[in-house]
């Protein structure tokens, strides 16, 4: 099912655009050029963060962390190996990308841990960053319950990601 989604999206967009006589190949190109700019900014960030993340694993710290959090995580059905990702996700998007990529590379992209990490990354956001951007733009300091509610949503995401992967990929 999901194998159809992307090819059909590509086909649908091109047929729709041609039907309206739009020169959509130029849009693809200019968008692609913007994407290259994104790669340029993400490269130094990933170099720095993967250095730190690899140090964290090589030193044995990530194993200690997951062992320390294992009792609580196992009870919730979240793989303890994902502890680091859960901690970093709300704080920094690129650090989460680095940690998640490291988990996928280390345990395998199609392993339970690799898939759980991917679903966690895909279904949550950098909560603290988003909060500061939106409340900053609005000029509001009294944020009331927004942070606890947003962090609760993250927690539900981490929990559901683990359960959904366990259920859909037995």
């Amino acid at each position: 099912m999901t194998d159809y989604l992307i090819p059909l999206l590509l086909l649908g967009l091109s047929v729709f655009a041609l039907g309206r006589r739009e020169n959509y190949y130029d849009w693809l190109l200019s968008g692609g050029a913007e994407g290259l700019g994104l790669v340029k900014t993400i490269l130094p960030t990933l170099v720095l963060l993967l250095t730190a993340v690899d140090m964290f694993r090589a030193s044995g710290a990530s194993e200690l962390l997951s062992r320390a959090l294992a009792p609580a995580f196992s009870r919730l059905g979240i793989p303890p190996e994902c502890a680091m990702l859960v901690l970093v996700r709300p704080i920094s998007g690129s650090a989460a990308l680095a940690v998640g990529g490291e988990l996928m590379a280390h345990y395998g992209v199609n392993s339970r841990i690799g898939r759980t990490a991917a679903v966690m990354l895909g279904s949550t956001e950098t909560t603290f960053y988003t909060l500061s951007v939106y409340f900053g733009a609005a000029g509001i300091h009294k944020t009331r319950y927004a942070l606890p509610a947003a962090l609760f949503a993250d927690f539900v995401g981490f929990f559901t990601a683990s359960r959904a992967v366990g259920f859909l990929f037995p």
Partner: protein
Amino acid sequence: MVMSWVWAVLVGISVICAAVTGNIRGLSGAVMQGAQRGVTLSISLAGSLCLWAGIGKVMEKLGLTAGLARLLRPGMVRLFPAAAEDSALAASLSANICANFLGLGNAATPPGMEAARRLAARSPQIASDELCRLVVLNTASIQLIPANVAALRSSLGCSTPFDILPAVWITSLCSAGLGLAAAWWLGRMGR
């Protein structure tokens, strides 16, 4: 500033840990390996990122976000009653939600900030329930196609990078739904 702390904490803990377990040699090897893997990962992500940025541009230019916004309007007015009286607010709210939904993160932020400003003008100083809902919706991230994660998976050699989509949809819906429910409940508690 946050990142300086994240970096310092990661490196600090690693050094202490490696010193205690006597694995400082492995640690210094990891420094160079990590840096190289950063380049490898970015380069292998580049193709999918560029392609997806192009597709995103096409969806934006074709007005797909605007079409989706019309579909979502009835539900949106229930979640944000103020949008019923303020059409500019309704427009920026729906642009924000739809761009998020289509995975166009960069296109979602400007209208989101505009919506936040308009909501804040209705209740200055203290965040209104609607503004809190907007923020929770944005942090919960409902995405149809999480292209970055799929790019990451395929860069690591996954041949079916999109097979996680149903799991992502279930998870986003649960976290957004329960996050909004928590916001509603906390809003009533605090009153």
